[in-house]
């Protein structure tokens, strides 16, 4: 090899040694190069081989050296941290709380908003709805669906309706969530049955009530995982059906349904105004939402040309599956994520403070080491390693906290979540936790490390001798950080405060019915044994009589729905004098069919007129309207005696006489205005499934057992379900509020605790720093009171600045909470005042002990501190 090339290679090798850790390189660089040189001379080889050898050598040994150094640093850091166990535990705990809570909230966000739905190419799936004025979305009617299914931009379009299904036969009668699905629904979703097959088109015909499919869970639970389940007959709603398939483990669609039957719609009986289906479509690869909507709009236009009366006001709405299923929670979850980020920020600034204090405390050590020749980078590296060790332990502990919190949160949520929403630590969530830890470590580790490395040894030693701690800049930085903590805490506390107030308002708000203690439950009669309306009416009348006879029961009623029960039965209403009859021109009202005694049982006031009685039958059709509707239709006069028709375009609808006006009820929840409502006597068209309401003075447990006994006496094969007092229905309807309120309150509390700890730490440090000065002052005549005042002034200043900043910030940020609030403005003065009070108390708590200690300083001892 020519000399020049040899020289170039050696220089190349020298440059490669930069990959070694600095200390190693400083010690051995020249020798490495020499050894390489000697070896190359002794063993001639091609330039390529030599270069290769060099590269391989460096790349195999340099990582080992780095790893070795890291191990040493970690061991050293561990020993150092173990020397101050309280401080170390404090930092790790704070970090764990910060990381744990952040990871928990992220896991919620991930589970609900980010994790892909468990279907084939879920981004191709969308809900297809129709909208009209005032109604954001409702399902298309069956004839419309048939037309939409001609669309070319969709590979398939399927439909379903949900409902409860009674299982009888083997074992206790049970009521499960079920769905009636078109035969191509599962195919559209891209999920294949585990056993057996999907429904065939032949089975999806009216009157063909022969097939059913089970969920895996139901198969295991009720049929003991019978391997011969496919082909077996089971009792569904009183009729025998054959199981043709079992879906895979974990699959329930939509959301919670465990049992499926064919939709089996009779096209001859369906009209274009009956919007009861939920329609799901899978668009072709590459088709956008806009494109698919445009095509469907074109089809709708064709329908509107042919059937203008029923469909002219409609428009097509296409919503990606995920958006509709979980979109409601998006805002709140993002707000939660922001809130918990603030908590993390407070935790990090707290840790930064603690690290700064400690770094300043180690000035002596660092000064000596620097004087002895340790280079800055090594010092920074070691300090960062300490932070790294704290981070690792904090992260692991934080993950543990997250696991516990998630389990707790899962049990708090009272509703059954869609099956794909599981709160757990999966790889992505863990990755998030690691990133947050890494970011936090860098954040709170860098500044103190950098601070410490800038210590000038001679200056530091001098200052130490005089008992004044070095790092004025560090002290100022810490005070800034504490202000920031207080500010962030104020923001969180205000948010928690307004949410708490909202929640209380929500609970106290008048929903229009007084009797929240009434017991509610649902019953479903099997069609086989109660096919005639008379049979149903007879059963329910007897049931009401039996239940009313139970001692302690005040009144009993039945209805098609209960307030806040999630029902959405809208109909149109026409009054005499209203010439328009087209459905899209008539007012929409909320419809409930009720038995006599409904208003009394629920505690809804009848403003005028009377309740239904036995005379209000099909020959004398009656109706009761809500106050709002009465004012709307007859603003000038009395509603009693007026006449209306419900859904006048339906041929069999007769004119009804208004016999009563009921008070408005917030049927859809406290946050929605009370809708205009009508009540129709139930006995005109008794449904198979109804809600039963019982008002009594009995304790709930004994009432329930009495009710069950009575029903069983009437018909042993009837499952009762949804048994709960009305106030539980009410609180379940607002469960998400409770959820958010709990979390926000927890964050607020954590924030204020951390900030108090932070302020306390600063105050302690301040007193320690200025012990000498205090001694001088006292020797010169300052009283204990003066000293205490000095301390309190400083802490008050910090609190005041922090609170002011926080108040300004909260005015800006709590606006984003508006959608979650109820009856409270985001800048509620009372809440702000309350937060201020909390902060003042926290400040007192933080300052009391240091101020006390400061006042006890003996001047003589203090002055001696040289």
């Amino acid at each position: 090899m020519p000399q020049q090339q040899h020289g170039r290679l050696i220089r190349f090798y020298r440059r490669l040694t930069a990959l070694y850790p600095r200390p190693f390189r400083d010690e051995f660089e020249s020798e490495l190069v020499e050894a390489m040189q000697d070896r190359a001379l002794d063993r001639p080889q091609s330039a390529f081989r030599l270069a290769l050898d060099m590269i391989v050598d460096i790349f195999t040994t340099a990582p080992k050296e780095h790893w070795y150094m890291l191990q040493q640093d970690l061991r050293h850091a561990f020993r150092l941290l173990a020397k101050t166990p309280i401080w170390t535990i404090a930092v790790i705990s704070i970090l764990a709380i910060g990381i744990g809570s952040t990871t928990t909230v992220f896991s919620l966000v991930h589970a609900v908003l980010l994790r892909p739905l468990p279907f084939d190419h879920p981004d191709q799936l969308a809900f297809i709805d129709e909208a009209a004025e005032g109604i954001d979305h409702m399902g298309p009617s069956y004839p419309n669906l048939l037309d939409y299914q001609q669309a070319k931009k969709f590979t398939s379009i399927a439909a379903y309706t949900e409902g409860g299904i009674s299982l009888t036969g083997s074992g206790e009668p049970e009521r499960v969530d079920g769905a009636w699905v078109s035969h191509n629904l599962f195919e559209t979703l891209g999920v294949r049955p585990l056993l057996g097959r999907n429904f065939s088109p032949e089975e999806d015909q009216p009157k063909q009530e022969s097939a059913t499919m089970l969920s895996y869970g139901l198969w295991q639970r009720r049929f003991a995982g019978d391997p011969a389940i496919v082909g077996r007959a089971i009792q569904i709603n009183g009729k025998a059906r054959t199981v043709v398939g079992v879906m895979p483990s974990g699959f329930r669609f939509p959301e919670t349904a465990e049992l499926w039957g064919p939709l089996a719609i009779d096209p001859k009986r369906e009209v274009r105004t009956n919007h009861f289906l939920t329609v799901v479509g899978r668009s072709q690869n590459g088709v956008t939402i806009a494109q698919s909507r445009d095509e469907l709009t074109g089809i709708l236009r064709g329908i509107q040309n042919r059937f203008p009366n029923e469909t002219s006001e409609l428009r097509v709405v296409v919503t990606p599956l995920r958006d509709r299923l979980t979109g409601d929670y998006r805002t709140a979850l993002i707000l939660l994520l922001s809130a918990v980020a603030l908590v993390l920020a407070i935790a990090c600034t707290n840790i930064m403070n603690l690290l700064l204090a400690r770094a300043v405390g180690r000035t002596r050590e660092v000064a000596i080491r620097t004087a002895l020749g340790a280079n800055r980078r090594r010092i920074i590296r070691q300090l960062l390693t300490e932070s790294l060790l704290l981070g690792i332990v904090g992260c692991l502990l934080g993950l543990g906290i997250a696991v516990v919190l998630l389990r707790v949160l899962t049990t708090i949520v009272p509703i059954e979540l869609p099956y794909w929403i599981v709160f757990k630590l999966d790889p992505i969530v863990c990755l998030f936790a690691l990133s947050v830890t890494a970011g936090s470590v860098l954040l709170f580790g860098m500044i103190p490390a950098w601070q410490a490395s800038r210590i000038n040894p001679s200056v530091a030693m001098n200052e130490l001798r005089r008992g004044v701690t070095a790092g004025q800049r560090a002290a100022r930085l810490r005070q800034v950080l504490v202000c920031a903590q207080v500010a962030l805490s104020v923001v969180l506390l205000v948010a928690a405060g307004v949410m708490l107030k909202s929640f209380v308002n929500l609970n106290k708000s008048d929903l229009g019915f007084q009797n929240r203690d009434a017991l509610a439950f649902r019953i479903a009669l099997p069609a086989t044994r109660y096919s005639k309306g008379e049979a149903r009416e007879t059963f329910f009348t007897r049931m009401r009589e039996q239940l009313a006879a139970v001692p302690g029961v005040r009144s009993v009623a039945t209805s098609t729905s209960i307030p806040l029960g999630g029902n959405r039965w809208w109909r149109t209403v026409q009054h005499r004098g209203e010439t328009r009859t087209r459905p899209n021109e008539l007012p929409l009202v909320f419809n409930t069919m009720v038995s006599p005694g409904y208003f009394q049982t629920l505690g809804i006031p009848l403003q005028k007129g009377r309740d239904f009685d036995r005379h209000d039958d099909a020959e004398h059709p009656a109706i009761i309207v809500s106050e709002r509707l009465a004012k709307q239709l007859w603003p000038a006069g009395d509603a009693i005696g007026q006449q209306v028709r419900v859904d006048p375009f339906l041929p069999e609808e007769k004119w009804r006489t208004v016999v009563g006006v009921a008070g408005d009820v917030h049927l859809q929840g406290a946050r929605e205005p009370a809708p205009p409502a009508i009540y129709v006597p139930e006995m005109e068209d008794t449904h198979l499934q109804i809600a039963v309401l019982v008002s009594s003075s009995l304790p709930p447990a004994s009432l329930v057992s009495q009710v069950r006994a009575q029903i069983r006496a009437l018909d042993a094969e009837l499952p009762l379900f949804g048994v709960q007092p009305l106030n539980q229905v009410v609180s379940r309807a607002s469960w998400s509020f409770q959820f958010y309120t709990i979390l926000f309150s927890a964050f607020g509390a954590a924030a204020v605790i951390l900030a108090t700890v932070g302020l306390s730490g600063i105050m302690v440090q301040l007193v320690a720093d200025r012990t000498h000065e205090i001694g001088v002052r006292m020797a010169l005549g300052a009283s204990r009171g003066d000293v205490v005042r000095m301390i309190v002034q400083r802490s008050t200043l910090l609190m005041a600045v922090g609170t002011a900043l926080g108040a300004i910030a909260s005015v800006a940020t709590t606006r984003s909470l508006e959608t979650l609030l109820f009856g409270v403005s985001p800048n509620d003065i009372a809440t702000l005042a309350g937060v201020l009070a909390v902060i003042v108390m926290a400040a007192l708590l933080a300052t009391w002990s240091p101020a006390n200690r400061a006042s006890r300083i003996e001047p003589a001892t203090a002055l001696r501190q040289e």
Partner: protein
Amino acid sequence: MAAMGTIQDLPEAHFHILLVLADGEKHGYHIMQEVESLTSGQTKLSPGTLYGAIHRLLGQGYIEEVRSSEPRRRYYAITADGRAAAEDEVERLRVLLQHARTNGLGVKRSNA
């Protein structure tokens, strides 16, 4: 001899270096050469491996740097602790060898 309780795993490269230093102080490249000849060319220490090992051995106190006649090169010598550690390893190998012979495993003669 080092206390029998402290069984510190002595990696092969470290042992070779101690072996080579047992009969006198040497500098880096010299160690490389001797280890290679010792193992009949089977172990060729690269500079990185060599000085990584030297770094460790210095940290463990098994070798030390000594002043040398040549100012340019640094010489290393084995310490008492290092000698003890090497002897432990020798003993360990001797026991193994003994077992091997008892079990009928002969010793191959290499082509000298």
